[in-house]
């Protein structure tokens, strides 16, 4: 590896400077500008955390800096085109004319990987910048070492990586371009706590080595606070105010604007939002039994056909026993890959068990049979409701109100609960909106409301707090505690210890080894 160390110094590309003067951007087909009147200077080598409520244009700014926003003000000048005003410069030039000067990492790990072999993926950016072949492989080895993935062979399949590893791989691909500016758009929002630290530490190491300028957008301030030397808070554009609300060293901004930031739903370090306390927290094991899992083995795969042979699915987890009781919370916790979600989906009657069984008591089945997997969809939703991690997967209509009415109409029920849910989850103003156009927090609230509209006795939630801001988090925890008090059973798959604590109840901890219920 002597070659690597000789080239080490060359990794330090010249850090980039950013300068925005009255910059604004309106996306094609939108009436309102995403960013308006932005004045901001970032010096070479500075590390900036960008905060602000959703709709403040943080992602738009990062995309513009990465040069991927596309051309505004085209010659054809059609009304539907996007619109740019003022200037946004990287090193005094337009970002989209400087390929490779900036590297961008986005949220969804799956789409940060381009090619199917680790080495090829890291090389992709350098190839596009026409780096000579021999230099590319030097850069690939170096970048993989910097992000802590050098133990993987170059032909290792990228599909076999964990979320945190995929994000580190993406970082390696960015580093191989030797950018002066690294842009991270919520890079850890989809990761479990271990993955978050993995990525954060890799970023820190690479910045120390390259001295590149950093701009990161992230809700969770505590993760990035010690790594950045400046926090900039943006606010949604209005015609009079400046787009920058606050700007300064982390400690100062966080102390000056603590109440403002918490009000905006930012996760300020050391802050756990207040949630409703449960009025009655029954002791573990009380409450009517609704659903029980016995010696369950679970897998997403179905039995596969190999020629004439039928090969049973390989369980990701087995020997799980658990009980779901009315008015009781059950938190399913454990590391990624332990089969938590798969277990929850099996419990909820959406996947068939590989071995063992899920049985509903008479109090829940009400004549529909003992095995939830055999229930018809209409029977299922008024007994067990499941909220998926990605709300969009569950949208079945084009309007918020129709989404909420869908379940009750299907069941032939009255729709009296819909108004209550709209009110309670602050969706009343959005009834005519298209579900796909809502913000992340709104989508989450809607997906919970739509499932509850069918009145299930058991509510199963898969990572309900992932990527949510502190306000949505608190609303959700309070709302679920109300449901629990009203006698609904709540099963949540979560990494979030504070959320588990807020709901109380029992915890089913799943390890790589077969789990045992408390």
């Amino acid at each position, binding site marked *: 590896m002597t070659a690597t160390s000789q080239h080490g110094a060359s990794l330090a590309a010249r850090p980039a400077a950013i300068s925005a003067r009255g910059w604004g951007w309106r996306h094609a087909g939108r009436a309102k500008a995403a960013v308006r009147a932005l004045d901001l200077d970032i010096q070479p080598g500075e590390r900036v955390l960008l905060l602000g409520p959703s709709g403040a244009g943080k992602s738009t700014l990062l995309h513009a800096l990465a040069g*991927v926003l596309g051309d505004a003000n085209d010659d054809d000048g059609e009304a539907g085109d996007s619109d740019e005003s003022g200037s946004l410069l990287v090193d005094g030039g337009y970002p989209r004319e400087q390929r490779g000067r900036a590297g961008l990492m986005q949220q*969804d790990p*799956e789409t940060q990987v381009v*090619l199917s*072999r680790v080495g090829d993926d890291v090389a992709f950016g350098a190839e596009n910048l*026409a780096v000579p072949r021999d230099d590319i492989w030097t850069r690939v080895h170096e970048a993989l070492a910097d992000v802590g993935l050098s133990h993987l062979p170059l032909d290792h*399949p990228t599909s076999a990586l964990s979320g945190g590893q995929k994000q580190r791989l993406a970082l390696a691909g960015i580093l191989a*371009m030797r950018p002066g500016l690294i842009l991270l758009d919520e890079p850890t929002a989809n990761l479990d706590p271990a993955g978050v630290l993995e990525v954060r530490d890799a970023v820190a190491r690479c910045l120390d080595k390259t001295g590149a300028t950093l701009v990161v957008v992230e809700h969770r301030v505590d993760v990035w606070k010690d790594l950045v030397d400046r926090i900039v808070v943006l606010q949604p554009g209005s015609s009079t105010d400046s787009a920058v609300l606050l700007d300064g060293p982390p400690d100062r901004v966080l102390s000056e604007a603590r109440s403002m930031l918490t009000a905006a739903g930012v996760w300020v370090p050391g802050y756990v939002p207040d949630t409703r306390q449960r009025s009655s927290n029954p002791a573990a094991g009380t409450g009517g039994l609704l659903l029980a899992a016995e010696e369950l083995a679970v897998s997403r795969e179905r039995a596969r056909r190999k020629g004439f042979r039928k090969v049973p699915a390989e369980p990701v987890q087995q020997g799980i026993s658990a009980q779901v009781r009315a008015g009781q919370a059950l938190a399913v916790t454990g590391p990624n890959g332990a089969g938590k979600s798969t277990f929850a989906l099996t419990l909820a009657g959406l996947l068939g068990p590989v071995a063992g069984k899920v049985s509903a008591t008479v109090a829940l089945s009400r004549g529909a049979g003992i095995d939830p997997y055999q229930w018809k*969809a209409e029977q299922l939703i008024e007994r067990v409701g499941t909220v998926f991690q990605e709300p969009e997967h569950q949208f079945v209509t084009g309007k918020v109100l129709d989404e909420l009415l869908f379940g009750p109409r299907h*069941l032939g029920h009255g729709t009296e609960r819909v108004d209550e849910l709209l009110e309670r989850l602050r969706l009343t103003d959005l009834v005519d909106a298209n579900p796909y156009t809502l913000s992340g927090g709104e989508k989450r609230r809607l997906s919970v409301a739509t499932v509850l509209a069918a009145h299930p006795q058991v509510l199963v939630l898969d990572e309900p707090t992932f990527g949510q801001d502190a306000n949505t988090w608190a609303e959700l925890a309070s709302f679920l505690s109300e449901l629990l008090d009203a006698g609904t059973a709540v099963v949540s798959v979560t990494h979030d210890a504070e959320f588990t604590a807020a709901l109380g109840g029992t915890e089913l901890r799943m390890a790589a080894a077969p789990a045992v219920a408390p």
Partner: protein
Amino acid sequence: MRQELNLQGNRALLTRANPLSKLAAVFLVTAVLALSIDWVSASVALILELLLFPLAGLTLTLLWQRGWPLILAATVGGWSTSILAPDSGKTLIDVGLWTMSEGSLELGAGFMLRGLAIALPAVLLMSCTDPTDLADALAQKARLPHRFVLGTLAAMRLVGLLAEEWQTIGMARRARGVGSRGSALQRVKATLGQSFGLLVQAIRRASRLAVTMEARGFGDGTRTWARESTYSSLDVWVLGGGVVMAGAAFAAALWAGTWNMVWLGS
């Protein structure tokens, strides 16, 4: 599905040949077989193809696992041809409505063997060719536009993801009360709705991937290639092997007098 696009540690000799020469050899063999329905050319090609299995790292078990639908289809095709083809020669089976004669059996066998012999080279090619290497060869050697080739390659990676997403969306919709069980009409409606959901997710994923690629400098400009696609002496052998196989099949059929051009009728 995602794993099957990889070579899974296949280190056989033919994995080192250039994908383009393999493609050309496959084309030669299948082109000759497509010209004639006869059992001699098909069997000769089939035997030669089976002999190539070890060189491609393919085993009969693997073939059956990956290619059983093709094998079944060829068998069924052959069977129905031998029943339905016009009779000639001695009648072998006569069960009222349908009969099988020597002539129709020969045609059926030819049909089945030909189907297998045409399908096998493609299975052979895919089992010893990495899609990334194929893309490299198409862009560097065949001079196809790199933007198109690499875009397709990146999109293929998403196909595997979509298969997983399809399952998730199906479950998510059942959790909303949309049943995928029930009458045929209900199933069709459910599948249509699920397809729409998948389409939305596919477009979202694809546009995010496009941003990722663009942010890594992907575009029309000149680019270099980290992996050089090269020809070696092995490729001469591969191409030569293709010519020999095609020639052998043709010559054997001519010699046996069974060569039977498709468009000339029988």
